[in-house]
């Protein structure tokens, strides 16, 4: 089944197609959910809610862009709603952890996806969301500001600090491995 047939099957409420659609996208979308959630259980809750929304609103998909992008957008929005329920705090990280310049690519190229996920999950809630939205999802600072009801400048500063924090953590990790 190609993507279009799969979508049309889902619109017809064909459970087989719905299951196939889930199997095709759930893995990637779970990664998205994990990046925004505190733990696996919350990520699964977000995934469940997102897919229910996808099935209910599939008829609104116009076949004009990437279907995966459409699903991802729903997942991100659902994850953000979950985060907003918890009231995101844009905490400040201690100054020493955000200092330091950029690091060389050799310092992080060996990192795997799970390592990166772990590092991102260590970030404070506000930093994590801005970092995910801008770097991975590709939203502009203006869009992030609108989505999170914050200023553009807050989004920018949170991103810079998040990036510095991650780079410092990578350097620390590298030193630990070297020892």
């Amino acid at each position, binding site marked *: 089944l190609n993507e279009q047939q799969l979508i049309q099957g889902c619109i017809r409420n064909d*459970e087989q197609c*719905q*299951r196939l659609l*889930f*199997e095709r996208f*759930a*893995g*990637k979308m*779970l*990664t998205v959910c*994990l*990046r925004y959630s505190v*733990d*696996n*259980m919350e990520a*699964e809750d977000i*995934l*469940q809610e997102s*897919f*229910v929304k996808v*099935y*209910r609103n599939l008829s609104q998909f116009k076949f004009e862009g990437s279907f995966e992008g459409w699903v991802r957008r729903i997942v991100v929005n659902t994850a953000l709603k979950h985060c907003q329920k918890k009231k995101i705090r844009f905490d400040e990280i201690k100054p020493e952890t955000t200092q330091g310049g*950029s*690091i*060389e*690519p050799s310092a*992080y*190229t060996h*990192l*795997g*996806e799970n390592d*990166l*996920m772990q590092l*991102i999950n260590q970030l404070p809630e506000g930093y994590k969301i801005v970092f995910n939205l801008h*770097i*991975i999802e*590709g939203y502009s600072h203006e869009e992030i500001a609108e989505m999170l009801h914050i200023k553009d400048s807050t989004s920018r500063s949170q991103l810079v600090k998040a*990036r510095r924090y*991650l*780079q410092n953590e990578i350097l620390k990790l590298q030193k630990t491995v070297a020892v």
Partner: protein
Amino acid sequence: MTDKLFDDFVKSKLEQHDSGAPMHVWERIKADKDRKPKGFFLWRKTYSLLLAGLFISGSVLYFSLSQKNTSVSANEANVSPIKNETNQQQTKKQPTISETNTTASVPTITETNNEATISPTSVSATSNLHQSDKKNDAGNLKQKIKKHSASISQSGNTSLASNIKVKYHPVAILSSSSSSSASSSSLSNKAVDDIKNEQTISFVPFTLNRKALDAFKIGAVAMPQNKPSCPTINGPRRRDLYLETYFSPDYNVRSLSTSGTLNSYVVERNATENYRTSFSAGIRVVKNLGEKTLLKGGINYTQINERLRIITENSKQLTQIITIRTVVRSPGDTLFVRDTMFYEQSGTRYRTTYNRFRFIDVPLIFSYEFGNPELMHFAVNAGPVFNIVSFYSGEVMDTTYRPLPISTKSGSNANNWRSNIGMGVFASVSIYKKLNERIHLFGEPYVRYNLNPVTQQGNFVKQRYMVTGMQLGIRYNLIPPGQRYKR
């Protein structure tokens, strides 16, 4: 540049990263996807039934009251022109008395339904005003009455003359003051016309016709069916009857206290239970007691929604899986193989329960209104609220932090709650905006304090609610605009 490289690296690594489809989530989605989304608050049959019940009882009440009003108004419609004339004559009466200082009062015998009436005020008023002419007036009066009796007898209406009943009537003053020299017959004719539409104020024994007086005994004469009622001294009385229906988004203030040294339990309860939403709705009948005071009574439904979330870290779950396989080795030789497998999962368990506390009450509220009813008026309300029944669904934690279902059975555990929380105190301020002659919109911020906790007496924990909210509703006047004031 290195930042850009770092960003690209992270994006390339994570954007398409697949964590593997969790198929157990699919089972949850399958169960959830076909469930209809919840509506505003009518997602339960009970709410629909409750609202339908309120609507039907309101309609029945309205129709029964409106029919009663129609029959009353039909009677009053016959009376109303008389009332109006009475008013006009009463307003004329006072200046007439002052003008008749020099004129002789000529009480007039008038005929109405085989009755002759004479105004008492004419005699008393003029007697006060003309102390010196008292005897002359009395003589004139006697003469006039005799003359009129004679004229009635001459006209052959003997039975009428014999059954004359004597009354004093204010009309006599009007007649006498307008022309003291006019003939008594013309006066009496005018008075007869007037008296037909007039209202008797009181009877005073009159010595002119002994027979008539003897005949006039309470019960001897049948009262006319449409006899107009006496006007009150204080003028027309308000007689409004309203039906009010409202909905209120509420906010609850919960107080939780323990009798013993279980502060940590209270802290844990407060940490795990969150207030979510609450609302109330109701219908009530409002009757005015005085010009500005009203009494409100009706039925009120309140629902408080809370969430209990218990997080158990390092929780272990043991799952037993029994697989039965059928092996057919040859015809007639079938083997059933049972494999039993256990697997243990450990992790953090989140247990969420949505608690709903429902109360049905009867409020009895006294209200004082002020302001301009034509534009916007206000009211201050207060009174007791009597709980009829309280019912609960959900769970609360006991002292060992285990969730227990809330029950109305008697006991002293944290989950033993009252089925009737008794009396509460209600206070509010209302703002009414008139939409038309019968309909008002109102907003009523209120506070209600329940005197008793929801937990049972003797329970080590006392859980009490104070409800605040903003009732928004419609007031409908069941009395039509023309009949709101009664004499």
